[in-house]
């Protein structure tokens, strides 16, 4: 499992993707959040719909907020979600 990326989805991203988490092994060319998103979009119509919201998608890498240029690597926990609305 150390070789996979643990991807989590929350709120309407979860609903659009149709699952709350998955363990994936993207190609070696995927090394950033933006690269991961581009690759995830190709996995299913649900993934494509989820990430079509583009600028509304937020990301956390290993439970810290991350920008599109942040590095991702095997073993990381990468979460995608809409802007937060708690409180």
């Amino acid at each position: 499992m150390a070789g996979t990326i643990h991807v989590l989805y929350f709120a309407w991203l979860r609903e659009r993707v149709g699952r709350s988490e998955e363990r994936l092994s993207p190609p070696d060319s995927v090394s950033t959040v933006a690269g991961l998103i581009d690759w995830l979009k190709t996995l299913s119509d649900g993934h494509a719909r989820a990430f079509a919201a583009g600028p509304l998608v937020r990301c956390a890498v290993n439970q810290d907020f991350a920008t599109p240029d942040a590095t991702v690597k095997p073993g990381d926990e990468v979460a995608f979600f809409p802007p937060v609305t708690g409180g």
Partner: protein
Amino acid sequence: MATVRVQEADFDITAEVAALGAGRADIGGIGSFIGTVRDVAGGRTITAMTLEHYPGMTERALARIAAEAEGRWPLLGCTLIHRVGRLLPGENIVLVLAASPHRHAALEATAFLIDWLKTAAPFWKKESFADGSEAWVDAREADTAATERWGRPA
């Protein structure tokens, strides 16, 4: 020094205040904010609010927000409790407590904590309407602006 909890159960404010002040008499004031579920959203009656969060990251984010407040004000402790799951109109969502020897520090830290919590902790709300439809709540520009008035973290 901070107490941070995410839970489905309601919280008891009196008990949380007592826990914050237990065994000490150097607190001059405790500021508090309680967020509750309103029955109307965008002019439509809501029947329930469902809160989802990111277990693990949530607790980290809340602890970081609390630490930031403790670095900015002379706090003697603070409490952040956020409920998740299905909540009905009128029910409690969130409790913020900040204790300080000084009342202005306690109240300012309380405002800071709730403003930051709204933009930096991974919670999402979905509203349920009387006709059976549901909708995720959109983030508000006003919440981002409210957080930005406190400046960037140190």
